[in-house]
C-alpha cells in the first residue's frame, strides 16, 4: 500500500484521485498560530508593561514566570521553554504565511500597483500585514534568540540595560511597530476570514471590528512606547551599573525598614 | 479559408438558443452556439416580471388550466396567433417550469397561510393552501384571468438565463462568444449554416451545419426609444430576410410598454401602476381617469401607452431637453413599500437618474418593447420556405403572439420553443437525407461575397456616416411608426427609410481597422437593420386595420374580413422595399373563433367564416357538456400529435392529481 502510494506520487499522479487535505489543515494552522501568537503578544505586552507600575511589579511578574513563587527558586529555563514554544509557533506561522507573499518582483509590483489604484483599506492593510510580517523575520529573530539563550537576563535592570546600553531600543521600536500592526490587522482579518462575529448585519459588524482593531492597535502602541520609554529611562540611569541584576527592595535586607 | 463543421448551428445564446442547443445535444448531435456577447448577457436577463405557466399553485391561480392560458393568449394576440402553436405552447409551459425547477432555478415558492397583497390598488388578505406550500408560486400580470406568472423574486429572466446557460456548460456545448453571423449559407432552398465574423479579430469563418437555428432575439433597436438592450438589433431576422427565400412574419406587430424611463427607455415594471402609482402630466394632473374612467392607470399596456402619447400630443407632456414625457408618481405608495416591494424600481431610479422615487416623480414615456414578428416558421420551428433554417424565441414568428403578446408569455416562449424546436431539429438531423452535401466552393463563394462587402465598407470611397444613418432611422421609427400610426406618417417613413437604405450603401468609415472596429459593425448592421425597419413600416402601412399593438388611427377597427392574415415579407436582391405576401388564418379550424378581446374597443369587422365556426364550436361544447375538458379540446382542435413525443401528456396540478389526469391522458 505504502509503496504503491509512493510510486503513484513518484509518477506525479498523487493529486489525481482525491485532493490532498493538507491545504485545509494548513489554512487552519496558519490562522491558529496567528491567533495564539497575537493573543500571546497582548499578554506579553501587559507583562512587560508592568514596568510602568514599578520595578518590583515587573520583577515579580518575571519571577512568577520563572517559577520562583512555586518553587522558591528561579528556573529561567521555564522561560526558555515558553520562548521555544513561541519560536515554534512563529516558525510554523511564518512558514505558512510566507506562501501568501508575492513570490517574485512581478507579483509584488502587480499587488502594489493594484493597491495604489484601488485605494481600498482592507487591501492596503494586507500589504502592511505582509510587509510587517516580512520585517518580523528579521526583527523578531534577535529578540527571541536572546530570550531563548539568556532567559535569566529579564528584569527591570537587565532589560533596561539591554534596551539602552545593549542598543536594543532601535530594534524594539521596529519590533513593536511591526508586531502591533501585524497582530492587530491579523486579528481583524481572522474575524472576517472566519466570519466570527457576523451577526445579522455583517456590514455593521465589520465596521465595528475595524474600529476596534484600530483602537487596539493605538492602545498597544501607546502602551508599548510608554513601556519602552520606561526601560530606556531605567537603562540610562542604570548604565553606570550595567550588568547588575535587579534585586527588589523586599529582598534587600538593609533598606527594608527604611521604606516602611 | 476556415470552415467549422457541426450538426447544429444556433445563432443566439439567449434563453431560446441555449434551450434549443441543449435539446439537440441531448439527442446526440454536435451543437455550436454563436453569440454577440457572453450568453448570460443576452437580453433575456432583463425580464423581471416572470414566466407564464398554468400551474395553479397559488390560491389566486386556483382553477387555472391550459385552456384559460390558451384563451388569454389568443385573445391577447387579437386572434393573430396560430392557435395550434398556442396549444402546443400552453401545454408545454408547465413542463418547462418544472424542468427549470429540476435544473436548479430558484423559483419563488408558495408560503402557506395569510399574506397581504395589493390588487388594483387595494390591500387584500389572501390565504395560501397548506398543500401548495413549497410549490412554485405565481403572481398577477397584465392580461391574464388567473395568477399565472411564475417568477424568481425580482430577477426571473436573469435567474432563468443563469440556469439554462449553466446547464449548457454542463452539457459541454461550445459557445463561440463575441461572434456575429452576418449571412446565411444557402443553396437550392436549403440552409447550410452561416458566415460568421469574429468581433475581436474581424476574421470571417464559415460554419457549415445540417440545421441552422436563428435565436437572435428582438429588433427593438430599430427604434430610438426602446426597453431593449443595445444588441437587440434584429440582425438574425435580417439574415433570414437577406436570403431572399425565407420570410419574416408580422413585422409590423410591435409592442410598446407604457413606462420606459425617459429618455433612456429602461423599463420600470408594471407593478408600479398595479400597486397604485399614478400617471401625471405637465400640470401634475392625473389624466388617465379622463380617458379611461373605469380602469384608469390599470388599463392594458397598449391602451395606457396610447393614452399617454395622446396626452403628450395635446401638449400636456412635461418638457425636457430630450423631449416631452409623462410623470409616474409612486410617492404615495410610501417608502417602506417602494424600498421593499419595488426594490428594482428604486434602484433604477437611484442609479440611473439620481432620483429618489419615494420623494420625486419618475419621468416616463412609452417605449418599444417587444417584436412579435420574426422569421416565419411552421409549428416545428422550421422555415416553410428555406429548408434547414429554424428559428425560436423573440426572433421567430412561430406565431403564438399574433399582434400582441402577453406579459410573461415571451420568456415562456423561449424555453418552450427551445424544448420543442430542439427536438424537431434533432429529428431533422437524424434523417440521413439531411446530411450536408454542398461543395466547399459554394461555401467559399459566400465567404468571398461577405468579405467583399466588408472590404467595400472599409476601403470604399463612401461618404455617409453610419451612426448618423442609424440615428435617423431610429428617430424616424419612433416618431412615425410608433404607437399611433397614420397612413401619411407611415408613407413618409417608408419613403425616408428607403432613402436611408440607399444612402447606407454609400457608407464610408473614419476608422479603417479590420479587427475590432465598432464603426464597421455599426455600418454593416445598419444596412441590415434598415431592411428590418422597412418590413415593419411597410407592413404597417399596408395593413389598413388595427389589431393588437398595431394601431392605425385612420383605420381604428379590427377587420377580420380583410386582415385575418399574417404578413409575410421577403427581400429580393438590391430592392429597397420588401415584397409582401399574406397567409390567411383558417377560421374553420380555430378552437377559439374571433370575437371581442374582453378589453379595448368592442368594435371589429367579422370574418365571413366566423359565425359558422362559432356555431360549430358551441355545438361541440353543448354536445360534450359532460365530457372532460381534454376531450372537448381534442374534439375542437386536436394538436397532440404535433408535439414531439417526449413532450406530450397532461400536467399535474393540486386540483388535477397525476393519477387521474396524466395517466388517463396517455
Amino acid at each position, binding site marked *: 500500500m505504502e509503496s504503491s502510494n509512493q510510486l503513484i506520487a513518484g509518477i506525479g499522479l498523487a493529486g489525481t484521485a482525491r485532493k490532498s487535505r493538507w491545504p485545509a489543515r494548513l489554512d487552519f494552522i496558519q490562522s491558529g498560530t496567528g491567533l495564539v501568537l497575537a493573543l500571546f503578544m497582548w499578554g506579553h505586552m501587559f507583562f512587560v508593561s508592568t514596568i510602568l507600575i514599578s520595578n518590583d511589579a515587573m520583577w515579580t511578574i518575571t519571577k512568577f514566570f520563572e517559577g520562583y513563587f512555586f518553587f522558591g527558586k528561579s528556573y529561567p529555563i521555564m522561560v526558555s521553554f515558553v520562548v521555544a514554544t513561541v519560536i515554534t509557533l512563529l516558525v510554523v506561522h511564518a512558514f505558512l504565511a510566507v506562501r501568501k507573499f508575492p513570490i517574485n518582483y512581478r507579483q509584488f509590483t502587480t499587488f502594489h500597483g493594484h493597491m495604489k489604484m484601488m485605494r481600498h483599506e482592507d487591501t492596503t492593510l494586507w500589504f502592511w500585514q505582509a510587509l510587517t510580517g516580512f520585517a518580523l523575520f528579521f526583527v523578531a529573530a534577535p529578540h527571541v534568540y536572546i530570550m531563548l539563550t539568556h532567559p535569566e537576563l529579564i528584569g527591570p535592570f537587565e532589560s533596561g540595560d539591554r534596551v539602552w546600553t545593549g542598543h536594543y531600543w532601535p530594534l524594539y521600536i521596529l519590533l513593536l511597530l511591526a508586531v502591533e500592526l501585524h497582530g492587530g490587522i491579523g486579528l481583524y482579518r481572522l474575524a472576517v476570514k472566519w466570519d466570527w462575529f457576523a451577526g445579522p448585519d455583517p456590514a455593521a459588524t465589520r465596521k465595528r471590528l475595524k474600529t476596534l482593531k484600530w483602537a487596539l492597535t493605538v492602545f498597544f502602541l501607546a502602551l508599548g512606547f510608554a513601556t519602552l520609554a520606561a526601560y530606556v529611562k531605567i537603562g540610562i540611569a542604570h548604565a553606570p551599573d550595567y550588568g547588575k541584576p535587579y534585586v527588589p527592595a523586599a529582598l534587600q535586607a538593609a533598606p527594608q525598614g527604611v521604606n516602611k | 479559408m476556415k470552415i467549422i463543421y457541426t450538426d447544429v448551428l444556433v445563432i443566439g445564446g439567449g434563453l431560446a438558443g441555449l434551450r434549443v442547443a441543449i435539446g439537440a445535444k441531448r439527442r446526440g448531435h454536435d451543437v455550436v452556439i454563436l453569440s454577440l*456577447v457572453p450568453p448570460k448577457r443576452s437580453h433575456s436577463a432583463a425580464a423581471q416580471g416572470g414566466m407564464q405557466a398554468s400551474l395553479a399553485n397559488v390560491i389566486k391561480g386556483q382553477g387555472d388550466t391550459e385552456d384559460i392560458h390558451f384563451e388569454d393568449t389568443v385573445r391577447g394576440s387579437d386572434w393573430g396567433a396560430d392557435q395550434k402553436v398556442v396549444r402546443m405552447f400552453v401545454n408545454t409551459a408547465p413542463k418547462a417550469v418544472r424542468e427549470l425547477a429540476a435544473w436548479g432555478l430558484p423559483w419563488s415558492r408558495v408560503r402557506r397561510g395569510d399574506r397581504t397583497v395589493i390588487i388594483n390598488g387595494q390591500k387584500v388578505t389572501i390565504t395560501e393552501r397548506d398543500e401548495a406550500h413549497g410549490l412554485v408560486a405565481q403572481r398577477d400580470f397584465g392580461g391574464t384571468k388567473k395568477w399565472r406568472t411564475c417568477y424568481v423574486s425580482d430577477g426571473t429572466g436573469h435567474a432563468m438565463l443563469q440556469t439554462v446557460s449553466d446547464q449548457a456548460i454542463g452539457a459541454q456545448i461550445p459557445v463561440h462568444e463575441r461572434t456575429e453571423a452576418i449571412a446565411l449559407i444557402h443553396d437550392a432552398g436549403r440552409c447550410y449554416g452561416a458566415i460568421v465574423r469574429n468581433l475581436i479579430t474581424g476574421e470571417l469563418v464559415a460554419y457549415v451545419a445540417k440545421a441552422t437555428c436563428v435565436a437572435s432575439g428582438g429588433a427593438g433597436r430599430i427604434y430610438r426609444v426602446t426597453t431593449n438592450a443595445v444588441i437587440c438589433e434584429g440582425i438574425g431576422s435580417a439574415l433570414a430576410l437577406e436570403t431572399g427565400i425565407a420570410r419574416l412574419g408580422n413585422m409590423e406587430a410591435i409592442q410598446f410598454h407604457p413606462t420606459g424611463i425617459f429618455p433612456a427607455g429602461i423599463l420600470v415594471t408594471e407593478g408600479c401602476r398595479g400597486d397604485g402609482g399614478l400617471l401625471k402630466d405637465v400640470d401634475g394632473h392625473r389624466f388617465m381617469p379622463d380617458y379611461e374612467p373605469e380602469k384608469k392607470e390599470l388599463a392594458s399596456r397598449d391602451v395606457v401607452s396610447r393614452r399617454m402619447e395622446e396626452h403628450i400630443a395635446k401638449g400636456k407632456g412635461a418638457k425636457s431637453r430630450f423631449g416631452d414625457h409623462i410623470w409616474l408618481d409612486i410617492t404615495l405608495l410610501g417608502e417602506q413599500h417602494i424600498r421593499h416591494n419595488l426594490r428594482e424600481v428604486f434602484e433604477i431610479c437611484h442609479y440611473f437618474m439620481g432620483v429618489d422615487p419615494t420623494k420625486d416623480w419618475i419621468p416616463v414615456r412609452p417605449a418599444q418593447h417587444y417584436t412579435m414578428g420574426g422569421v416565419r416558421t411552421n409549428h416545428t420551428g422550421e422555415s416553410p420556405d428555406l429548408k434547414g433554417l429554424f428559428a425560436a424565441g423573440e426572433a421567430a414568428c412561430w406565431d403564438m403572439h399574433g399582434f400582441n403578446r402577453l406579459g410573461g408569455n415571451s420568456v415562456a416562449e423561449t424555453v418552450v420553443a427551445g424544448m420543442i424546436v430542439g427536438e424537431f431539429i434533432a429529428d431533422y438531423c437524424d434523417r440521413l437525407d439531411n446530411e450536408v452535401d454542398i461543395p466547399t466552393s459554394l461555401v467559399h463563394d459566400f465567404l468571398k461575397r461577405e468579405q467583399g462587402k466588408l472590404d467595400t465598407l472599409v476601403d470604399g470611397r463612401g461618404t455617409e456616416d453610419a451612426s448618423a444613418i442609424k440615428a435617423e432611422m431610429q428617430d424616424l421609427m419612433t416618431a412615425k411608426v410608433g404607437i399611433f400610426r397614420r397612413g401619411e406618417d407611415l408613407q413618409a417613413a417608408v419613403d425616408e427609410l428607403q432613402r436611408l437604405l440607399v444612402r447606407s450603401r454609400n457608407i464610408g468609415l473614419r476608422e479603417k481597422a479590420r479587427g*475590432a472596429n465598432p464603426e464597421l459593425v455599426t455600418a454593416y448592421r445598419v444596412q441590415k437593420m434598415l431592411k428590418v425597419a422597412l418590413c415593419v413600416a411597410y407592413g404597417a402601412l399596408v395593413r389598413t386595420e388595427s389589431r393588437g399593438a398595431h394601431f392605425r388611427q385612420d383605420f381604428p377597427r379590427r377587420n377580420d374580413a380583410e386582415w385575418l392574415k399574417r404578413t409575410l415579407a421577403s427581400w429580393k436582391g438590391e430592392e429597397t422595399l420588401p415584397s409582401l405576401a399574406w397567409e390567411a388564418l383558417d377560421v374553420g379550424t380555430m378552437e377559439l373563433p374571433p370575437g371581442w378581446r374582453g378589453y379595448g374597443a368592442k368594435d371589429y369587422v367579422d370574418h365571413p367564416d366566423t359565425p359558422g365556426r362559432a356555431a360549430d364550436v358551441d355545438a361541440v361544447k353543448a354536445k360534450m357538456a359532460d365530457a372532460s375538458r381534454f376531450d372537448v379540446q381534442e374534439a375542437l382542435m386536436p394538436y397532440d400529435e404535433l408535439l414531439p413525443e417526449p413532450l406530450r401528456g397532461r400536467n399535474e396540478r393540486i386540483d388535477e392529481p397525476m393519477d387521474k389526469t396524466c395517466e388517463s391522458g396517455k
Partner: protein
Amino acid sequence: MSDANSKIIPIAKAGNGGDGGSAAHRQLKISVLRYNPQEPSQPPRMQTYPLEEADGMTLFIALNEIREKQDPSLQFDFVCRAGICGSCAMVINGRPTLACRTLTKSLGAEFTLAPLPFFELIGDLSVNTGKWMRGMSERLGGWLHMKEPNPDLRRAEQKMDPDLADKIYELDRCVECGCCVAACGTARMRKDFVGAVGLNRVARFRLDPRDARTDDDYYEVIGDDDGVFGCMSLLACHDVCPKDLPLATQIAFVRRKMVSLGWS
C-alpha cells in the same frame, strides 16, 4: 389620497429636469486608458476626451457620444445599459464598477476610465470576462448536478422551502461582471485563483438540496490555494460587488466547511 397630491408639482423633479436644459452644464474631461492588443505598435496611453455633460448622463450615454462624435475606434461593452447584464464593468477612478449605472454627476469633472485588469484585454475598455467565467464554471462544475437527471415533467415539481429558494436566489444574483475578481489582490497575483465569483457559485450549489454533490466533491475543486484557501480575506470583492452579494460571509462559510474536511 390622490387628489390633494395630484396638485402638487415637486420642485426638485427628476435629474432630467424640466428646465429645458437651460442650466449651465459642466465641461467633462474623460481620460480613457487606450490600448489595442491587435495593434501592439501603439503602446498603452491615456487619451482625454472633452464632453459637455447633460442631465442624467450616465457613462453609457457619455461613451457612446464620444464614440459617435469624436472617436469611432473607441472600444467598450454595453448590452442592457440597465445594470442587469454585467457587461460594462470597468475601472472608474481606480475602482471596478458598472459603467452603465454610473452617473457622471456622481464623479468629478475630470475622471479616468480603464479596462478591468486581470481579464484578457480585447481593446480599450473591453475585456473578455465571458471567456474567463466560462472557464471558471467548467472548472468548478458551475451547474446544478441533478440528483434525478430525467424527472417526469408531467408531475408536480419538488417542493422547496420558500425561504431557501430566496436564499439561493440571493446568491444567484451574480451577473458575472468580474468586478470582484478585478478588485481582488489575490487574483491579481495568482492567475489561477477562482475568485469570489467562483466561491460564491460553490456556496450557491452547496445550498441547493437538488444538487447531488457533497462537500467532498466541492473540496475537490476548491480545496487548495487556487480555491478557497487562496483567499486572503481582503474583502475588496465584497466592497465592489455591484449586486451587493454577501461575498464575505459566503466565502467564510465555504472556508469553514472546507477546513472542517481537513480533519475528517
